[in-house]
């Protein structure tokens, strides 16, 4: 295999593979990137067997073929080369020689035969704007639990339905639910339900950042994998196995009382008061009284703090304990200026939603209270 490729293009595509390449690998070949030259393009593939990415860029191919080289080393080296063309040639012993200007390097590679084969892409079932996907991921990802158990999954539920896309994530204490409006949901040919692992969501966000305005992800899935094709890049991930908790049971049907607040005010108030909350539980007490919301914290060791924020609230006086971190996670991610705090009583779930005119989709965040 022999080809010439522009340094900038190679660096850009290689960078995308870095998040996928296994760092603490037990299988040496997985720290390599597979390079294939075909027609007028080269294709780069990286995988850790959970997640795979395949990118391509134009190249002048002199001789078709394939080979693998250490992904990290290749990127570190190529990045330092001056702008311009890079010539790569794979030798008989699987080594690759890289020539650029006056630099000549030979890098130890491994046989292409031992590189795992990515599963074939099934027919496309939906076309989804990547910006929509990225925004949904940003607004649910923080609620994913770190560890998996029967009760929680380290990933989010993605629902593709003709009426729109839905993403739900939970860690057992809170749940984030986003439903994109049909106008932003692209076209869904066939309803689909899938659990996306947390790591794949991160890579998907990276792809979305790198994709141009209006880019669309072609979504498909087979029994075990999910595929997102964005332009000439393909991200595929193993599906999460397990049952996602019955989120519809969790979403409150009715709320007796609503407090509407200024997001910036309540956010900074909580940030300040939470300094005096217990370091582990981050417990604060939130008191809803007519016309304002008060926040309290106290810890035996450090002291106590309280603050009040004006609010549109007409319900009865209520005091509920919450984890400050959970509230802040939501307040930090929404773009709207107003936030609605819906509640029922001390023992029932509280719900936060962005409020105001600029709300176009349905974003609901359910937080369970604490007993303090």
């Amino acid at each position, binding site marked *: 295999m022999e080809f010439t490729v522009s340094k900038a293009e190679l660096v850009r595509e290689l960078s995308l593979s870095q998040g996928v390449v296994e760092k603490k690998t037990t299988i040496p070949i997985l720290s390599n990137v597979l390079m294939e030259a075909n027609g007028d393009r080269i294709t780069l593939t990286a995988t850790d067997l959970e997640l795979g990415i395949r990118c391509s860029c134009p190249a002048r191919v002199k001789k078709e073929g394939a080979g693998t080289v250490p992904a990290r080393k290749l990127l570190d080296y190529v990045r330092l080369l001056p702008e311009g063309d890079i010539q790569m040639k794979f030798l008989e012993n699987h080594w690759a020689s890289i020539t650029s200007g006056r630099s000549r390097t030979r890098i130890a590679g491994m046989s292409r035969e031992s590189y795992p084969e990515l599963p074939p892409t099934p027919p496309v079932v939906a076309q989804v704007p990547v910006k929509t996907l990225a925004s949904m991921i940003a607004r649910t990802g923080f609620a994913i639990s770190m560890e998996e158990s029967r*009760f929680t999954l380290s990933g989010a539920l993605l629902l593709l339905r003709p009426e729109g896309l839905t993403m739900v994530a939970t860690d*057992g*204490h809170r749940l984030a639910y986003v439903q994109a409006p049909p106008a932003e949901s692209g076209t869904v040919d066939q309803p689909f339900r899938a659990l996306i692992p947390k790591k794949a969501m991160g890579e998907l966000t990276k792809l979305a950042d790198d994709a141009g305005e209006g880019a669309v992800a072609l979504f498909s899935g087979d029994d075990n994998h999910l595929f997102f094709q964005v332009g000439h890049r393909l991200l595929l991930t193993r599906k999460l196995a397990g049952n996602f908790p*019955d989120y519809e049971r969790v979403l409150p049907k009715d709320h007796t009382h609503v407090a509407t607040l200024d997001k910036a005010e309540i956010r900074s108030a909580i940030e300040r008061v939470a300094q005096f909350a217990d370091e*582990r539980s981050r417990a604060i007490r939130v008191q809803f009284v007519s016309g304002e919301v008060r926040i309290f914290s106290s810890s035996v060791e450090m002291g106590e703090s309280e603050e009040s924020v004006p609010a549109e609230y007409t319900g009865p006086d209520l005091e509920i304990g919450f984890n400050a971190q959970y509230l802040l996670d939501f307040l930090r991610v929404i773009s709207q200026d107003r936030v609605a705090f819906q509640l029922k009583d001390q023992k029932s*779930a509280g719900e936060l939603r962005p409020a105001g005119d600029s709300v176009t989709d349905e974003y609901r965040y359910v937080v369970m209270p*604490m*007993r303090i």
Partner: protein
Amino acid sequence: MGRIRILPDQVANKIAAGEVVERPASVVKELLENSLDAGSTDLRIEVESGGRRLIRIVDDGCGMLRDDALLAFERHATSKLRDVKDLLSIATLGFRGEALPSIASVSRLLLETRSEEETTGTSIEIAGGKMLRCEEAALGRGTAITVRDLFYNVPARKKFLRTEQTELAHIASLVTHYSLAHPAKTFQLTSGPSELLRVTPVGSREERVYQVFGSQVLEDLVEIGERQRDLRMPAPGVPPSEAISEYLREPEEPEARTFRLNGFFSRPQVQKGNRNSIYIFVNGRLIRDRLLLHALSSAYHNLIPPSAFPFALLFLECDAEEVDVNVHPSKTEVRFRHGSFVHDFVRDTIRERLMESRPAPTFPVSPRSPQHAPEAGQAAAQLPYSEFSQMVADQAPPETLPVGLSEHGGEFNVPSEAALPEFTLRAVPGPDLRLDFSAPPIEVTPGPQPSGKLMRHADPHGSFPPDALPPPDLSLSVLSALRPLGQIHESFIVAAGRDGLWIVDQHVAHERILFELVLKQRARGSVEMQRLLLPLVLQLTAEQQIDYARIADELHASGFETEPFGQRTIAIKAAPAALPASDIERILFEILETAEGETRGVSLDDLRRNVCASIACHAAIKINTKLDPGKMEWLLRALAQTDCPMSCPHGRPIAMHYSTREILKAFHRI
């Protein structure tokens, strides 16, 4: 003629002998107790063939008058008791009047005794319970009893005797422990030509422990000092023995009964595989008592693993009326009138002292100790894979293993101890790290050269002042002054202190901090609870269901809001706030597991500690977690403030100390 008849004394004595004289050691025990009761200060014990052929005890006690000497071999003849009321307050070791006739009925016995009041002594010879001879003899004051051919007329019992070595070991351990209980007396034990024990009178128990066990053991022990607690409650209590309950005087209870506890117990790092190293004396009597054993283990609860046992020598003194020794003819069991008070007193005293002493484990490092190489290899094998652990594993030279085994074979045969680091608390003055520049140059004091190869002239690398050093404060309170240097394997904090290097296991350290925090919150009743989005439904086994029902209240108080949810199913609605939701299922089953089985009878307090330990363990930072310096510092400071920073609630050590002295030694600077 009826079929029932009264057994002749001969037979009755043999039956009693079955209970009292089980093995040669029981003979020694009975005779030794008689000598002690007689006020002897010099006790010599000779045995041959593990006591089968000969047991001879010579004392300088009060001796016996001739008539008494004859009477002593009658059944139930004793000088220690007069009427049944005396049974309520037995101050002597013996009282049953059974030992001598029992022993005499199964052996050839020679008694030689002279009391102060008589000018001549008495010599009596008995074989198989029959008196052969009784004559006047010229003897010194005191009593000498020679027991030959034990069980010569009871072949069945003789068959059950173990090897000479085993029987001798029992005798030796018995004499050793009586010698510990009576530091002011001389004890001498010889087996044939060899002397097994010889201790001269000393002023304190500590000195006696040193005489018997040596300095190494003494360093691992904590002395209780004299602790006492008064029992004030005029509690009715259980009558000491039902047979004499009718004679109990009506509650004309004295205002206060004082219990005193003295003795030694090991630091938590010393862990024994069985209870054989626990010796409990109640009013000078060596006993095996479940109540006191339990008190001891609960004092160590959360400090050493449940399967390990400490070394302990406990001397409990109390009013003779508070304890009933008339439980079994062998007198190794007692009953306390106020059992729970005694239990709590012993447990609290030991626990308090354990907390106060806060000893720090040290590394068993010495420049030439090949046995650590295989340990390093083992440790590396258990560590998460990393370049370093790989390196450690690679470097552990395999050929050192046989060397270590051959040189330290004995140590390796005892896994419970070999696996554990060795702990010392030698009060060695460690050099101060702060060098005084203005001080005149200090000559290195010429010490014994460890080997000819090491040339130690004036050290060109600068020397440490060898004296004028503060005695090292080896208690873990110094933890707060430590400066964290970094982490090993993102699991262990390495920290420098004034007195050397410390390595702290971050998980168990945090676990200890949280454990005490959770306990405190629990005590205050201010447990923070996080409600769950969806109740977590758990399926229990029938056994777990029963355990759950028993501990449901305690679970609730600890922050688990649970409720029965149909047949053998419970729903968890809320859990302690510090726990991640994904762990709740595991932790609840873990708690149920600790609540079941042998601990079923465990006190509520222990259960609570178990629950808190489980919560703390799951909420604590894990190993393989990167910590920034601020966090490490916080962890060390918080650890220093805990009541017991030396081991985690499950008994694992938290911090290891490598003293400056040991570092200097390892680099051949001292």
